[in-house]
């Protein structure tokens, strides 16, 4: 089986879903002839034509509002927002409509719409090509939120997202679009909504993370093992809403120590909710505090982005502290 990157895996998922179901259409800025600025939709226009691979005018509000209409009539739109940092013009449509129409209509209408978008930092993209706003969508209520950490999961999760009857925010960490290659089967497979994955086993600490931070966390875990002899278990959440609480609880029963790593700012990041949930419901499993290593509560900077983002040193430090309990 050939090794491919996440962009290629996403492209494969879109192509397979469009072949499987005529109702699947993709749309967004520059996604047709250009194939998307990161080439996720590359070549689709040649296979499916411009009626199904729709280059749109430059307005995120328009893309999402229009996609909601497509979905209401029974199509399965996959809308690309070129960078998640540009989504805010569409926030009224996302918050008040995409996430509310099922509720508003008493369940008579639903919006099977996937909003997919590159997110997160690490490519020297500056403020408006680097941010991690997953909490905004989680807090919206009415949206599923996913973020894969590699090609295999990206393909399976995107297929699941397209087949769900509710809207999905599908965030793609652009820094790992091309650097990670995995074997990705050409067959049809999906990854269940709300299921995380243990990407590294260990008995001392449960490290919960997602997206590109999975890879930083793995590197940190290797160093911690070498320097401190600590075995870190890493959970890749994959679905951020609803998150896989059972996987976390099972791991904590073994480790009793919890660390959360995410790129988004600390205050009210998903780490806050994970931490609050475990303290509310499973405080008896913990030997000590739950710690978080996150982005800072500042805008994402162009200068020193590596120092803004969670790094090995900060993860190492947090693990050392947790091992005092």
């Amino acid at each position: 089986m050939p090794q491919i990157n996440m962009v290629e895996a996403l492209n494969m998922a879109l192509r397979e879903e469009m072949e499987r179901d005529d109702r699947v259409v993709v749309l967004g800025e520059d996604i047709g002839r250009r194939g998307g600025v990161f080439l996720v939709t590359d070549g689709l226009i040649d296979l499916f034509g411009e009626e199904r691979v729709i280059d749109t005018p430059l307005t995120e509000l328009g893309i999402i509002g229009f996609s909601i209409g497509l979905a209401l009539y029974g199509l399965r739109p996959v809308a690309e927002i070129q960078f998640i940092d540009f989504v805010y013009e569409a926030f009224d449509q996302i918050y008040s409509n995409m996430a509310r129409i099922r509720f508003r209509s008493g369940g008579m209408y639903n919006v099977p719409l996937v909003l997919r978008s590159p997110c997160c930092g690490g490519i020297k993209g500056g403020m408006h090509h680097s941010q991690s706003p997953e909490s905004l969508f989680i807090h919206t209520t009415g949206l599923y939120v996913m973020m894969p950490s590699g090609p295999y999961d990206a393909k399976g999760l995107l297929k699941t997202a397209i087949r769900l009857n509710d809207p999905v925010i599908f965030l793609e960490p652009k820094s790992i679009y091309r650097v990670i290659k995995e074997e990705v089967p050409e067959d049809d497979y999906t990854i269940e909504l709300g299921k995380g994955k243990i990407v590294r086993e260990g008995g001392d600490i449960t490290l919960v993370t997602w997206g590109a931070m999975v890879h930083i966390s793995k590197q940190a875990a290797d160093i911690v093992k070498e320097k401190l002899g600590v075995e870190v278990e890493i959970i890749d959440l994959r679905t951020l809403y609803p998150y896989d609480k059972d996987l976390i609880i099972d791991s904590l029963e073994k480790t009793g120590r919890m660390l959360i790593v995410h790129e988004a700012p600390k205050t009210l990041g998903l780490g806050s909710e994970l931490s609050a949930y475990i303290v509310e419901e499973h405080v008896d499993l913990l030997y000590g505090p739950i710690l978080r290593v996150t982005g800072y509560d500042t805008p994402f900077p162009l200068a020193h982005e590596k120092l803004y983002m969670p790094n090995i040193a900060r993860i190492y430090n947090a693990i050392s502290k947790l091992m005092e309990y």
Partner: protein
Amino acid sequence: MSRIVRGIDEASIEKTLGIYRIIDEEGNIVGDEPNLDGSTLYKLYEYMVRARVLDEWLLKLQRLGKVAIHAPNLGQEAIVGAVTPLKPDDWVFPSYRDLGVYLVRGMDEEEILDRALYNQDDPLKGSDFAIYGNRRFNMVPTPVPVGNQIPHAVGVAYAMKYLDRDSVTMVMFGDGATSRGDFHAGLNFAGVYRVPVIFVCENNQWAISVPFDRQTRSPSIAFRGLVYGIESIRVDGNDVLAMYKIASEAVEKARKEKEPYLIEMLTYRLGSHTTADDPSKYRSEEEVNRMMKYEPLKRYRNYLIFKGVLTDSEANELYRRYYNYIEDIAKKVLNKGGLPHDVFFHNVFEKLPWNLQDQLREFRESLELMKSLGLEVD
């Protein structure tokens, strides 16, 4: 001005700056009447009467504390002319001041009152106030943030064209909504993709307290439609025949040519924005009294009497009949029970995720506790 810019010639500009009408405020014929038989002419009148009587009842029920809030329709009943040419498979995105639209689409007074009271039979399950819709009538419930539905309608129209359906979409919104990005994005997409959507702007001159000349410096809303490459016309929105005739042409054109169309319905909001509003703070009673003589029912009634379709006493009888009819329905719906307490947990997602299941369990326990403590549940 002889230059033609992508379909924008002098005649098409003139259509957006004039006021297309067929009958004047006295009911005199001043334009080309559509070729309609007596029963169709009568039907238009009946829908307008039903809308007006229902509006009066909703205001009454609001004052009695039974209805949370109501957006009065008085003066805008001629909107029935816009939706009458549509077929059942066509889709409608109404605004929240469109009782006539709901009735024409087939929603009856009982369902509208069930909705207004959000009782056990409320089709929208108590989701929000002052909005109406039902999938049975291909009528999507209105988002309260004004104009949000405009790009949705364009997406539906695109899907109709993509699936090769013979259907069209109509979307209503007010003058205030035209200042929002939704209006711009919706019209822009419709122009670019050439989809069968009819935009109906109910320009009632007031967006709560802000008058039209504060909303835009454009000479009309229809004028703005032109620059998106959309055929547009301003119509006397208190002349139901003009609304019917122009909407028929727009619907036919959209259906045949798969092209968008914009109708500016020039009207006047004679009532308050909603029952929570006090118009005496921002507009004079003189203005309202002056505009009263343009209202749509009286002129159409005069016209129908002139045409021999209706007599004065039949008109009075029609009003009385619906008034009594709704009185009976009001008694019936007021006796219906409420929605289940946990109704708001459902219809967020197709299936409840685990966290909502946990919260629902906790909610139900709290209800039991409230009862055991002797506290009133709701």
